[in-house]
C-alpha cells in the first residue's frame, strides 16, 4: 500500500491535501490513483514520441531521396502502436472498474447512509433497521476507518454531485433518480468533499466535512449523536432555549429531543461539534456562528436562510444555545 502510494506520489509530488484526488485515503481513490499513474506514463510516452518525431522533422538536414516508402511503413507501425496503447489503456480501465466494484468484497457488511442534496447543503442520514438508531445530521459525515460504506444518493431540487476526492470518484445526485456510491476509507483523518455539478448561485459554497476515525471513536461519536440534545440547565440557558424554540429557528431546523423538528434547513443536533458551518463555507467557532446567524445573506447570498432581524441580546441567546449542542 505504501509502495503504491509512493508510485502515485512520484509524478505528483507534494499533492497531499484534504480535498485531493492525488492523496488517496480510501481504497477506491487509491485504485484510481494507480490507474492515473499508468495512464500518465503511457500517454507521456506517446507524447514524447510525437515531440521527438517533430523535432527530428524540423531539425534534420535535407538530403535528396525522399523516404516516402519508409514513411508509409512507419505510419503503419505508428497505427499499430497507437492501437496497442489504446487497447492496453482500455483493458486497464476495464479491470480497474472490476477492482472498484469488488473493493468492498469479503469485508464486514457496509455502513449504510443516505445523502440528500439540496441547494446548497447536504442532509446526511445514517440508516438502520431500528428507527431508534437512525441518525440525522447535516454537512458532516463520520466514518469508521476500514469499514465499507454504501451511500444512497438523492436530490431534492436540481442535479448535484457528491465528491470526496480523497476517498473516491464522484456520483451525481439527480432528482427523480436514486444513485449510489461505495466508499472504503483506509486512513484516519479529516477530509473535505464538495458538490461537483453546477447547482446554482452558491454551488461554490456547498462542501462537507468527512471525519474518518478509528472504529472505537466512531462508535463513541455515534452514541453521543443519537442521544437527545442536552437539556438547558441554568435560567439563562432556559431562556435561550425558549427563544430558539418559539421563534423562526424551529420552523426550519430540527434538534433531536426538542420541539424543533423543521426539515427545511439542516439538522442542528450537535452543531457545535462540527468543523465548519454553512456547508463548508465558514470555520466553526462562536464568532463565525454568530456572524452567520446575524446575516447569512451577506456571507452566502441566495442561501435559503433568510436574514432575520434580531436584537443583540436575541442573537446572543440563539448563539449561546447552539453552542451547547456538542
Amino acid at each position, binding site marked *: 500500500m505504501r509502495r503504491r502510494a509512493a508510485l502515485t506520489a512520484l509524478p505528483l509530488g507534494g499533492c497531499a491535501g484534504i480535498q485531493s484526488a492525488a492523496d488517496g485515503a480510501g481504497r477506491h481513490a487509491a485504485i484510481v490513483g494507480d490507474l492515473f499513474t499508468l495512464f500518465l506514463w503511457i500517454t507521456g510516452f506517446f507524447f514524447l514520441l510525437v515531440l521527438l518525431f517533430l523535432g*527530428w522533422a524540423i531539425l534534420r538536414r535535407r538530403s535528396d531521396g525522399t523516404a516516402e516508402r519508409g514513411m508509409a511503413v512507419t505510419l503503419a507501425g505508428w497505427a499499430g502502436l497507437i492501437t496497442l496503447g489504446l487497447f492496453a489503456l482500455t483493458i486497464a480501465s476495464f479491470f480497474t472498474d472490476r477492482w472498484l466494484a469488488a473493493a468492498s468484497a469479503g469485508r464486514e457488511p457496509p455502513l449504510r447512509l443516505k445523502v440528500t442534496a439540496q441547494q446548497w447543503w447536504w442532509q446526511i442520514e445514517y440508516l438502520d433497521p431500528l428507527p431508534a438508531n437512525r441518525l440525522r445530521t447535516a454537512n458532516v459525515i463520520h466514518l469508521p476507518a476500514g469499514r465499507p460504506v454504501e451511500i444512497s444518493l438523492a436530490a431534492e431540487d436540481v442535479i448535484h454531485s457528491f465528491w470526496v476526492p480523497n476517498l473516491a470518484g464522484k456520483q451525481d445526485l439527480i432528482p427523480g433518480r436514486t444513485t449510489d456510491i461505495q466508499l472504503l476509507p483506509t486512513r484516519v483523518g479529516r477530509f473535505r468533499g464538495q458538490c461537483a455539478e453546477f447547482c446554482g448561485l452558491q454551488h461554490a459554497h456547498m462542501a462537507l466535512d468527512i471525519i474518518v476515525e478509528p472504529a472505537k471513536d466512531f462508535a463513541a461519536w455515534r452514541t453521543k449523536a443519537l442521544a437527545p440534545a442536552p437539556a438547558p440547565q441554568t435560567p439563562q440557558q432556559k431562556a435561550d432555549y425558549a427563544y430558539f424554540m418559539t421563534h423562526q429557528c424551529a420552523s426550519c431546523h430540527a434538534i433531536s429531543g426538542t420541539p424543533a423538528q423543521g426539515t427545511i434547513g439542516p439538522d442542528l443536533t450537535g452543531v457545535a461539534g462540527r468543523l465548519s458551518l454553512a456547508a463548508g463555507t465558514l470555520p466553526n467557532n462562536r464568532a463565525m456562528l454568530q456572524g452567520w446567524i446575524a446575516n447569512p445573506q451577506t456571507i452566502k447570498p441566495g442561501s435559503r436562510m433568510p436574514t432575520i432581524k434580531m436584537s443583540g441580546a436575541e442573537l446572543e441567546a440563539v448563539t449561546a444555545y447552539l453552542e451547547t449542542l456538542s
Partner: protein
Amino acid sequence: MTAAADLPRDGAELRGEALHARLSRTWDTPGDLYARLATVDHKIVGQRYIVTAFAFLLLGGVLALIMRTQLATPDSGLISADRYNQIFSMHGTTMMFLFAVPMGEAMAIYLIPLMLGTRNISFPRLNAFSYWVYLAGGIMIWVAFLLNVGPETGWFSYVPLAGPEYSAGKRTDFWAQMITFTEVSALATSVSLIASILKQRAPGMAIGRMPLFAWAMLVTSLMVVFAMPAVMLASSFLIADRLVGTQFYNPTEGGDALLWQHLFWFFGHPEVYIIFIPGLGFVSQITETFCRRPVFAYPVMVLAMVSIGLLAFGLWVHHMFATGLPRVGYSFYTAASMMIALPSGLQIFCWIATMWLGRPRFDAPLLWVLAFIVTFVMGGLTGVMVASVPLDLQLHDTYFIVAHFHYVLIGGMVFPLLGAITYWFPKITGRLMHEPLGKATVALGFVGFHTAFFPMHVTGILGMPRRVYTYPAGMGWDTLNLVSSIGAFLFAAAILLFVLNILWSLRRGRPAGPDPWAAPTLEWATSSPPAPYNFPHIPVVTGHAPLWDEPGDLPVMTGLRVDDRELLLTTVMDADPEGREASALPSIWPLIAAIATTILFIGSIFTPWAVVWGAIPAAAALIAWFWPKSGDVPPEPVIE
C-alpha cells in the same frame, strides 16, 4: 428574343480587360448601403462573418479575463456569485455558439468557392440570411447579458436547474432561443457548403483530388446536419417546459432530467468536432504550402477525417459517466472515446511526415501549426485519460476538464485559425501581415496559453471543482490559480498583438499579389483580393495540387455567360461538367426574412402566440424571396 447561342460568354472572343469589365458589371456589389445589405457575394458575406465571429472571440475573451481576475486570489469579493455565474455561462456560450462554429463556417464561406474554382456558393441568398440570423442571435444574447438577463446556468444549461422552477425570469429563455438562431444559421450554411462541395468543383477536381480543407468542410457540414437538430429539439423542449408548461424534463410528471443530457450531448459531442475539424483543414492547407509538397498520405488523411466525423456521434455518453447509468453501457463509450484517438494520431503523423519529407519554411502560419501539434496532442492525451470511466469520475467537473477542453479547443482550433488568418490574409486583403510580429505572437500565445492552462490539470487533481465563483484559501490552489490568471493575461496580450498586426497590415502590409506563398490550391490563381466574379474563366484541374501540377498557363473552361450570373455544375465523384446553373442575384429579402424571423424568435420568448403571428410576416418574406421578378421571360433562366 435572343437565341441562346448569341449570348455573350467568356472565351476566345471575350477575354482579358474586356471580359473583366463585363463580368465585374454582372457580379460586382456597388458601394451604396442598399447594395451592401442586399449582396449575396460569398466573399463579402464571408468577411462579415469572419469579423463578427472574431469580435465574439474578443468579447468571450474579456469575460475570461474577468473570471481569471476573480479567481487569481481565494475568497475574492470582486464579483458577486450571480454576476460570475452569468459571466461563465456567457463565456462558454459565446465561445462555443457565437465564435467557434460560426468562424469555421465563415472561413469556409469565403474560401471554399475560391478553392473549388467556382464563382459563388451554391445558395447565395440563404447564405446571406444565415449571416443576418447569426448576427441577430448574437446581439440578442449580449444585450440580454448587459441588461442582467443573461444566461446563468452554464453553456450546457442542465435541467432542472435551467427549468421553470429553478431558473426564474427570462434568462434561460434568451439562452435557449439564441440556440435556435445559431442553429438555423449553421444549418443553412452547411446545406450550402455541402451542395457547393459536391456539385461545383472545377472540372477535373475529382472527389479524391479536392483540397483537404474541402474534405474537412464537407465532413463538418454533414455533422452539422445530423447533430444540430438534437440541440434544437432539446432547447425547444426546454422553452416549452418554461413557457407553456410541458413536462419533458420534470421528473415528478414522467419527465427526465437525463433526457436533456442525452439530447444535448448527442449534439454536444459532435459539436466539438464540428469546431475542431475545420482546424484540421487549416493545418493541412498550411502544412502543404509551407512544406512545399502535398500532405503525406492523402487517402489516410481523408479517411481519418471521415472516421472522426462518424465516430464523434458515438461518444456522447462520456459526458454522463457520473450520472449512474449502467456500467456495462459505459464500457462501449469508453472504447469508442479511446478509438477516436487513432485517426487523430494518424493525422498528426502525416503532418509531421510532410514536414520531414518536404522543405519547410517556418513562417508564422507554420509556427502556428507547430503550436497546434504540441498543444492539441496534449489535449488529446488528457482526453484519453477521461475516456476511462474510473479516471473520469475523479476528473469530471474539475479544473482538469477545463484544462483538457481548452487544450483541444484552443490548441486544436484557435491556433490553426490564427495561422489560417495569417495565411489567407493576403488573399482577402491584398497585403501580407507583418511577419516578425506574427512570429512573436505565436511565441507569446504559446507561452501564455500553457502558463494559463497547464496548472489547471494539477488544480483539478487537487480537488478544485469547476464553475465556482470563489474558493477557500489554504487548499493548495492559491498559487496555481494565480499562475493561471497571469497566463491568461499573457495569452490575451498575444491576441491583442494579433489584432494590432491585422489593423497595421490592412494599411501598411506588403502588397501580396495573387500568390505570395507559391501555394498549390486554386484560390491563389486569381487576384488578391479576388475580383467579384472570382475567376475570369472556370479553371480545369488535372491533379491534387492544381497550381503545382500546371506550372505554365492554367487550363480553363470557357462558355459561361457574362451578362448574367452563371456558374458550372459538375458531377459528384469525377467532377465532369454537367450543367450551367444560374446563380442568385442580390436581394434584400434575406435581410427582411431574417428580421421577420428574429421578431418571431424573440417574441416567442415571451408568448407562444408569437410563433403563430410571427410566422405570417416570415412566410411573406420567404415567398417574396423566392418569387421571380416579373418582366420578360429571359432566354435562359435567371434567379432574381
